């Protein structure tokens, strides 16, 4: 029985499954509010809080930046406990899906995937970074994470003006783009009310433009720079969902690397690590579905295998691919 179910899953069409699950989460996070869905404000993915009408949950980065900007006296009073509780909720949510939040649930990630499939349909080849570029670019997300913590704390301590509040949100393409889906264009403006606001909103719009063009050419363009991804990685060792590799079964054929949106080399080349999740990984599991080696890559939930690379599944999926255009 269980064996059969496992086989079904391993033979499944991950691409389609993912497509629909992404749509489901998109609807949930972007339009859920209309159905009075509210999963709270500690969601470990970009369920943007600026989408005030439709949000079915709120991205944790908003409360995080707000909370860090509280004055230290408030932060060390009772409010501090509320902050910790908020963080624990964030961690709990995160532990369930690990970075799978990125591959399956993040509305901004989904938007990028849609842009990618548009490009692919137009027959334009995707871009990739050279290894040198990759190594430098991947640091940006940590820099952003640090700024995202330091600036709000600076506000709390009175070094920066409140116009700097939620600094990352100001430059996040989620803020400008996700509300558009509920007909709210108000984030697409430049704010001239103060110099700080003007600079931040201008940056925001610049990044939005770069985001749209960038993700047209580069798969998951923004995810390389996403501080949420950096935050995730710090906790990923604790998560329930795990991406495992059995190096002894891997032939280094590179199929997994070829399909990886995030150009993660280790997925193919590293035959030592058991836990193969890298900081850039979005846990889309495309690698698992593209791996032709029985059990070389495997997804486990609390130690229980849920999806595994198999020859049979690989061939099934390949045949399907070959049939469709």
């Amino acid at each position, binding site marked *: 029985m269980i064996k059969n179910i496992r086989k079904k899953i391993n033979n499944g069409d991950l691409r389609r499954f993912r497509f629909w699950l992404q749509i489901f989460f998109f609807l949930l996070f972007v339009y859920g509010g209309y159905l009075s869905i509210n999963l709270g404000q500690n969601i470990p993915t970009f369920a943007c809080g600026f989408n005030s009408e439709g949000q079915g949950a709120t991205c944790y980065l908003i409360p995080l930046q707000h909370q860090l900007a509280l004055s230290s006296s408030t932060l060390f009073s009772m409010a501090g406990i509320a902050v910790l509780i908020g963080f624990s909720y964030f961690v709990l949510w995160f532990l369930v899906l690990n970075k799978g939040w990125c591959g399956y649930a993040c509305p901004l990630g989904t938007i990028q995937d849609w842009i990618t499939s548009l490009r*692919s349909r137009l*027959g*334009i*080849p*995707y871009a990739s970074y*050279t*290894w040198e570029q990759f190594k430098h670019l991947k640091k940006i997300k940590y820099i952003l994470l640090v700024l995202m913590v330091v600036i709000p704390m600076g506000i709390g301590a009175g070094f920066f003006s409140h116009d700097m509040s939620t600094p990352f949100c100001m430059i996040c393409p989620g803020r400008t783009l996700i509300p558009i889906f509920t007909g709210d264009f108000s984030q697409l403006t430049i704010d001239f009310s103060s110099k700080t606001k003007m600079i931040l909103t201008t940056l925001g719009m610049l990044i939005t433009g770069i985001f749209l063009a960038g993700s047209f050419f580069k798969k998951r363009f923004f995810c390389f720079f996403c501080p949420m991804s950096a935050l995730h990685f710090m906790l990923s060792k604790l998560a329930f969902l795990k991406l495992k590799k059995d*190096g*002894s*079964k*891997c*032939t*280094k*054929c*590179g*199929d997994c*690397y*070829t*399909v*990886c*949106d995030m150009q993660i*080399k280790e997925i*193919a*080349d590293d*035959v030592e690590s058991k836990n193969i999740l890298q900081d850039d990984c979005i846990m889309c599991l*495309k690698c698992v579905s*593209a791996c*032709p080696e029985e059990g070389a890559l495997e997804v486990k939930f609390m130690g229980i295998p849920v999806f595994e690379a198999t*020859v049979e599944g*690989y*061939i099934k999926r*390949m045949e399907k*691919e*070959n049939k469709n*255009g």
Partner: protein
Amino acid sequence: MANHKDEIKHPFNLTHQASEATRMLRSITDDFPDNPEAMNYFYDLYKKVYCEGVSLHENKKIVGTMCVQVPEELIYASGAVPVRLCNGFYTDDHNGADFMPAKSCSLVKATLGMLDSKSTLPFINRLDDIVLPATCDQKRKAGSMIADMGYSVYDMEVPPVKESEEARIYWRRSIRKFAGELKQITGKKLSKSSLKEAMAKISRAQKAYRKLYELRKQKNSVILGKDVFMVTNAYFFDEIESWTEAVNRLNVELEKRVEEKYSAAQRRAPRLLFTGSPAIFPNLKIPMLIEESGGVIVGDETCSSNRMLYDMVSSDEWHLNAMVDGIADNYLKPCTCPIFTKNDDRKRKLLHMAKEFAAEGVVYQSFSGCQVYSMEQASITKALNDEDIPVLFIESDYSPDDMGQLSTRIEAFIESLKAKRRRNRK
């Protein structure tokens, strides 16, 4: 087109090669009982091609390949047919001795001999191009000699280190350049659809091969190693679609054997892996000796068989760039050829196969003169011995002279495996 041999032409069936092939084929079919029905396709194929000299791939451009690293997808996509030129004839080896020092690799010498021979296989006469990946020293140096015979030779650069990112870039570039070369030869530009179709064609063949591969994991060996070598060896030159069909037919028959609990070897036959220098028809000397001595080859790690067919290519998007890069990576990264600097992948592969196939021992063939396989031997043996898997290292060439001595060694090895098994049972 090599037209320097137009002057005299023996019909191929009258050559020494044809009689060598006939002898070998007879012993392959007749020395063993109960060959699978579906093997007849392959026996007939060899008979037609190597004994009767029937031509193949009429009206098609033919691109000869000298090593396993040449991406056949690209060749099919440009409308040509790849034919692997690695040769196993002792007669050709003999003739090839004119080109190379006596202590060189039989395979290279035999290939040179075949290409130089006045009356070679008909479709060899029609080669439009020969692609020579710069792998081992002997192949590398063979290139200019072949060119001197009047063939058009394309040297394909292969990085000596395969782990580095530079190697990946270098190789991808080399493959793209090769795609350009193919366009020159066939006049046909690579297109998305033709490449995708070629990839599908090869992946169907690989799927059939993988099935066969899986069937060999059965506790009861349903097919002998010598037959599998015949199957994979036929992939060198056969028309790919009929090859695939034939393998599928064979698989069906073998599945039936599984159900019937039929065993092609003795029930207690020690299960062996074959690795090292490739076994190529008609030089199936060692596999035959093994299986005649009561062992059974359940898997192999050689470039004439598993290494050639095992790794399958994926592509995320079906654009030329993505596909070609994916193909490139797939021909370099998993390649366990000993010409690369490191051999960790080969060790890992062998250890994993030993586990998968429940192999009790490994036979490691190295052609005398093949430096790289001989040099890797010690480290591979050690890695396997550490896992308690005995290795028999055999240095040999195409000449039949060492048959007696080899058969003693092989028999002794198989006996020792049986003894070991008895010990373990106690």
